[in-house]
């Protein structure tokens, strides 16, 4: 066979022998190479087609989020929120004529001290001209068209309700870290990035808080007091509906004038609460079945001695010689209370106060809390603790203990978070609680022949129950007590099934002759009066959301 030496790649020129086609090996090799190259290109194209990185366009925006979660009240009203703001700075390297810039700044921002800018200009490369620009300021700067004036965007925390919740919410620092209040207590939860759009919901009610804040502010002015505080608690859940402490400050104002006496009087301030403790003394003895509300104590004197220390009756007269248990509370008899402690047993009285959580650290979700600094129990301080002297506690613990007395006997952990369920424990029986409510009602009821100290709080339709307490404040300069007083009124309503506990504290009130035509300054003349004013205002708001209270209204209206 003749050897084919043809180099032509044209297929038709290939040699044909009989019916067989002989394919040139070189042709095959070249075709194979092309096919391989073709497949390589195809695979590369397919690979590129499925390559995710080539699909996605470059992101045209940054996802939007703030560093801290919102805080809202029980109705969803905004209490704290992060938002963007701009600071105005001057970049020294871009300044052409400093005098011109000074003139522009002076014309547009007359409140800025030009001399400070001049001194900063000598020493700094970047000068902060104004922080937190308003939208108007922002547009003013834009219109100036000055390239050396620049904006710096940053996040700030704002509090739309201003000073209404200042003690509860607390503050954040310039790096958005919580430094006080719930901002500090729940810092990690508030910064939780997985829940940035879910607000932290508190059990507080802004409208109620506003009404209480307003009345309390008026009360501080009327009674020339150093300060005041109030707590409204749901008696059956331990949730705080309102908590006010005066004086307070607008948390939006940073590094401004310092106000003295601004600590939280509700959770931080430790006070001897006075006669409001008589309620606990009587409740303990009734629950231990050593007395009933009609048990009578006779031959009560105006002074008794504990060792060499005298304990005096307050405003003693002959009518305080013989008193029933109910009258001991309504007439606020110190000596009668001591007799009840004697009958109940000193140890039982001590155990009961401890069970009520009076000396415990508050469970509320705030970092600014104090625990009672009660020392060892002695005979004398056990007696005086019966009427709230010689033992101190916080207003929040007092409120919690009163809630337990009036709600059927359950002591519930207090909380300002809407979803938090506090622990419950029984401290007195339902029957004792019911009897105590009747006794406390007698102290407020205007129809009672014996005028109770709380009658100024008897607002029609609400059947308020409660007890006043007037305590001398310990002297700051010497041993013993000063002439200044601290007044408390612990109340609840409505009488038959109390749903709300309201406690009022007034620090160093003076007499108010412009209201009463006399200058008496006991709790009945200020704390109870203020509680009445507050209940009158908040009552309708509470009743609208409280069917039981509304029904109570309806029944009262029919009866009257």
């Amino acid at each position, binding site marked *: 066979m003749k050897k084919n030496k043809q180099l032509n790649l044209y297929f038709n020129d290939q040699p044909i022998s009989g019916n067989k086609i002989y394919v040139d090996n070189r042709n095959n090799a070249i075709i194979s190479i092309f096919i391989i190259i073709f497949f390589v290109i195809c695979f590369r194209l397919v690979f590129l087609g499925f390559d995710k990185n080539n699909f996605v366009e470059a992101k045209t925006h940054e996802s939007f989020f703030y560093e801290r979660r919102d805080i809202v009240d029980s109705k969803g009203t905004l209490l704290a929120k992060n938002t963007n703001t701009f600071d105005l700075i001057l970049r020294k390297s871009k300044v052409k004529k400093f005098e011109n810039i000074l003139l522009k700044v002076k014309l547009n921002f007359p409140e800025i001290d030009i001399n400070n800018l001049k001194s900063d200009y000598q020493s700094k490369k970047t000068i902060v001209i104004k922080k937190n620009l308003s939208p108007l300021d922002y547009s003013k700067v834009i219109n100036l068209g000055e390239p050396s004036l620049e904006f710096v965007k940053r996040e700030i925390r704002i509090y739309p309700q201003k000073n209404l919740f200042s003690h509860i919410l607390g503050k954040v620092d310039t790096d958005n870290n919580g430094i006080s209040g719930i901002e500090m207590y729940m810092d990690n939860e508030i910064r939780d990035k997985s829940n940035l759009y879910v607000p932290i919901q508190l059990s507080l009610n802004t409208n109620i808080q506003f009404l209480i804040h307003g009345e309390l502010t008026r009360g501080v002015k009327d009674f020339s007091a150093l300060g005041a505080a109030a707590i409204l608690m749901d008696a059956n859940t331990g949730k705080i509906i309102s908590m006010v402490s005066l004086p307070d400050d607008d948390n939006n104002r940073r590094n401004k004038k310092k106000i003295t006496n601004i600590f939280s009087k509700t959770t931080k301030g430790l006070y001897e609460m006075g006669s409001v403790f008589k309620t606990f003394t009587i409740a303990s003895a009734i629950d231990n079945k050593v007395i009933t509300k009609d048990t009578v104590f006779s031959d009560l004197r105006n002074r008794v001695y504990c060792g060499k220390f005298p304990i005096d009756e307050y405003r003693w007269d002959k009518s305080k010689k013989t008193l029933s248990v109910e009258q001991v509370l309504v007439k606020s008899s110190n000596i009668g209370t001591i007799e009840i402690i004697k009958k109940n047993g000193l140890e039982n009285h001590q155990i009961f106060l401890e069970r009520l959580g009076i000396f415990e650290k508050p469970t509320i979700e705030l970092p600014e809390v104090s625990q009672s600094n009660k020392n060892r129990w002695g005979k004398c301080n056990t007696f005086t603790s019966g009427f709230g002297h010689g033992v101190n506690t916080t207003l929040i613990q007092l409120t919690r203990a009163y809630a337990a007395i009036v709600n059927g006997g359950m002591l519930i952990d207090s909380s300002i978070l809407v979803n938090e369920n506090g622990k419950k424990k029984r401290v007195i029986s339902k029957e004792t609680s019911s009897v105590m409510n009747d006794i406390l009602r007698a102290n407020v009821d205007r129809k009672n022949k014996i005028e109770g100290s709380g009658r100024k709080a008897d607002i029609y*339709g609400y059947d308020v129950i409660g007890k006043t307490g007037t305590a001398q404040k310990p002297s700051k300069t010497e041993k013993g007590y000063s002439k200044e007083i601290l007044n408390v009124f612990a109340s609840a309503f409505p009488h038959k099934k109390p749903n709300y506990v309201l406690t009022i504290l007034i620090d160093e009130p003076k007499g108010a002759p412009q209201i009463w035509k006399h200058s008496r300054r006991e709790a009945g003349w200020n704390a109870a009066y203020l509680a009445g004013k507050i209940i009158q205002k908040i009552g309708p708001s509470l009743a609208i959301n409280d069917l039981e209270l509304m029904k109570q209204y309806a029944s009262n209206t029919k009866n009257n």
Partner: protein
Amino acid sequence: MFRKYLATLVFLLLGLASIHFLKNETRELEVKIEKKTKNISDLKEDLEIQKVEFGYLSNPQRISELAKTYLSKDYISLFPNQLALDEKK
């Protein structure tokens, strides 16, 4: 042999065309999604600003001051008998 090559070639060309089509469609969808996402983000930012403004405008302190200025009345407390209970509810 030629048929096989041709079939493979046609198959590959069809595959390439469909990939090209899919890729472009996907790219268009990605762009649309991006636009929508940006839109949502802008709306969220607007909503957050509106929330702040609403918080300020509905602040009871502010409303109370406005009421005192324009309504010439202080807050009026309702008494129990002024509220009615809707039994149907």
